[in-house]
C-alpha cells in the first residue's frame, strides 16, 4: 500500500497514518513523493478543493504495483453537493484521500492540540481505507467506520474497527499479520 502527501504535510501526520495502517490492518506502507499539482482542483468561490477531481488526478500517481493509494492533505475538501468532506474514497477501489484541515482544533477556534490531531488523523485514515476495502458505514458509533459529519462524531469513535468491521477489513486487506490481528479482534 502506498501513501502520498498532496502538497506539504507534516511528517508526524504521515507517520501516524502509516503506523495505524500497520497496527489495525497489518499493511506495510510505502511513502511516495508528494503530488504538487493540485491547484486545478481549487474552487475560488468556495475556497476549497474538489475531492472528486483530486481523486481522479490521483490515479496518475498510482504506481503499477500499488495495491491501494492513500492521499493525505492539509487542503480543505468538498464534493459539489456538500459543503465539506473529511475525505473520500473509491468504495472497494484503489484510491482514497483524507483531509486533516478540519481535524485541527485551530479550525474550530481552539488552541492547537497535536495529540488530538494525530488521533483524529488515524481515525479518518482507517475510515477511508476501510471504504477502499469495500466497507460501508457502521451503525456502531464507536467503530471507526461509523459516519462522521461533524468533529464531535469523529471524537466519539475509537481509532479501531469494531469486531465485525475488523474481520471484513483485515480479510480484504490480506496483510502479513492477518491471523494475529484477527485473533486479537475476536478475543476482545
Amino acid at each position, binding site marked *: 500500500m502506498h501513501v502520498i502527501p498532496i502538497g506539504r504535510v507534516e511528517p508526524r501526520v504521515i507517520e501516524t497514518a502509516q503506523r495505524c495502517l500497520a497496527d489495525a490492518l497489518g499493511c506495510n506502507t510505502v511513502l511516495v513523493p508528494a503530488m504538487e499539482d493540485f491547484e486545478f482542483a481549487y474552487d475560488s468561490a468556495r475556497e476549497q478543493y474538489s475531492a472528486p477531481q483530486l481523486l481522479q488526478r490521483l490515479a496518475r500517481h498510482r504506481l503499477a504495483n500499488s495495491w491501494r493509494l492513500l492521499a493525505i492533505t492539509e487542503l480543505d475538501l468538498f464534493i*459539489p*453537493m456538500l459543503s465539506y468532506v473529511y475525505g473520500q474514497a473509491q*468504495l472497494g477501489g484503489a484510491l482514497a484521500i483524507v483531509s486533516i484541515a478540519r481535524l485541527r482544533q485551530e479550525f474550530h477556534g481552539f488552541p492547537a492540540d497535536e495529540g488530538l490531531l494525530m488521533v483524529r488523523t488515524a481515525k479518518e485514515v482507517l475510515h477511508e481505507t476501510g471504504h477502499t476495502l469495500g466497507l460501508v458505514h457502521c451503525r456502531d458509533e464507536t467503530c471507526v467506520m461509523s459516519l462522521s459529519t461533524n468533529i464531535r462524531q469523529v471524537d466519539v469513535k475509537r481509532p479501531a474497527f469494531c469486531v465485525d468491521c475488523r474481520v471484513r477489513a483485515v480479510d480484504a486487506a490480506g496483510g502479513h499479520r492477518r491471523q494475529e490481528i484477527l485473533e486479537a479482534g475476536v478475543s476482545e
Partner: protein
Amino acid sequence: MKMQWEILVADDEEVMCESLAAWLREDGYLVETASSGREAVAKAREKDYAIYFLDLKMPGGMDGIEAMMEIRRLHPDASIIIITAYATVDTAITAMKEGAQEYIVKPCNPEEISLLVRRIIKVKNLQRENTILRKKLARQYHFQDIICKNPRMRGVVDMAVRVANLKSTVLIRGESGTGKELVARAVHNSGDRAANKFVAVSCAALPEGLLESEMFGHEKGSFTGAIAQKKGKFELADGGTIFLDEIGDISPKLQVDLLRVLQEKSFYRLGGSEEIRTDARVIAATHVDLEQAVAEGKFREDLFYRLNVIEIRIPPLRERRDDIPLLADYFAERISREMGRDVIDISEGAYKLLMDHQWPGNVRELENAIERAIVTSKSQVLMEDDFAFLPRSNGKRVWNVPVDTTLQEMEKQAIAATLERTQGNIKDAAAVLGIDRSTLYEKIKRYEIPR
C-alpha cells in the same frame, strides 16, 4: 432481514450526480443516477426507490418539479428531495406543495443531509416491518383456505370444525360466490374422513338425465351413449364426502332419488339391479331460499329436512366488510405469485374503494377484481385507478331493482341495508323505512336479519 435500500440521484451535472451517489454508497445504499428528468422518470417506472434526489434545474424539457409530479403519479408515497442551487421562496413553496419531502440548497451541510436520509430510511424500515407484521398476522386468520376475522365468519369456521366428525348431513347456505365449497371442504378436511375423497357435484350445471348418471353412475347400455359401466359420484365418495352444490335446482325425480339415498344409504346405478351401499357424507349447498321453494311446492319438504340437519349460513361479503382488506391482501399475494408478478401492497385509497363496494358476486367477485387489477397494473402497489372497472357509487349505494326476486326478499334486503347504514340503530332505521319500531323488530325477527 436487513434491506438494502435503493436511492436515485438525478442531476444533469455528472460530477454532482456521481459525487453524491458515491457519498451515499459509502453509507450502504444502492445508488443509481439519472442525467435528466426524463431519465429519472423512466427509471422510476422500472422500480420504486426509497429516496429520489432531483435537481430542480434540469434541461431537456423536464425539470425537477415536473419529474417529481410524474414520479408521484407512479409512486404516490415516494420520498422526494428537491435540490437547488439557489434558495428562492417561490420554488420552495411549489416544491413542497407538489409533495416534495424536503427541499435542500446545495452545497448542503453533510450532517443535515445524512440526518434527512436516515430519517426517511427509518420510516421506510418501519413501514416495511409493518407490512411483514401484517402479513404474519393475516396468517392467523387462515383456516383451511378460509380467510376471516369477522365474528360471524369465525362462527362459520367454528361450526365447520365442530360438525366435521359427525355423520349428519350439512346444508350450507349463502349467496353465490360466498365460498360454500370452501366451507364444505373445511368440514371434510377437519374431520376423520379427510384421508378419503371429497367429491363435488354441481347440480345446476347438468340436465336431469346426465346429473342422475353423474350421481349414481350407470351400467353399460343403460341408455344411448352409455358405452361402458360408469361409477357415480356417490360411489366415488364412499368413506369420504359428497358435496352437492346448488341442490335447490334439482328436478322432482332426482329429489326422490336423493331422498332414498339419504334414508337407505344405498342406491342402484342407472340400468343396474345391484344395490350399492355408500358411506358418503352428504354436504349440500344452495343460494336459493329453500323454505320458500318448499312453500311453493318446488322442493320436497321431507328432503329439505333430511338435508337441513345442520345448517351453516355464510354471510355475504357486504355483511363482513372487515374481512375485505384481509381477503384482498391474500388474493393479491397469491395471484401475483401465480402470475410471477411482484405486487407487494394495496394503497389506502384502493382499500377504501374495495370496502365501499357492494360485492353482489361476493368473495369470488373480489378475487376476480384483484386478478383483473394485477393484470392491468404496472406498479407494485394496486391503486384506486387499478379498480376503475368497478362501478362507482359516489359513496351512495346504487339500488338496482332486482327482477328475479320476491317482494319479501326485497323487503328483507332493504331492511338489512338500512340497518347497516344506521349501524344497527333501530330507531333511525325505522324512521328511514317509514315504519314504526315494533313493526321493524317483527320483520327483523321474521327475516332473521343479523344486526
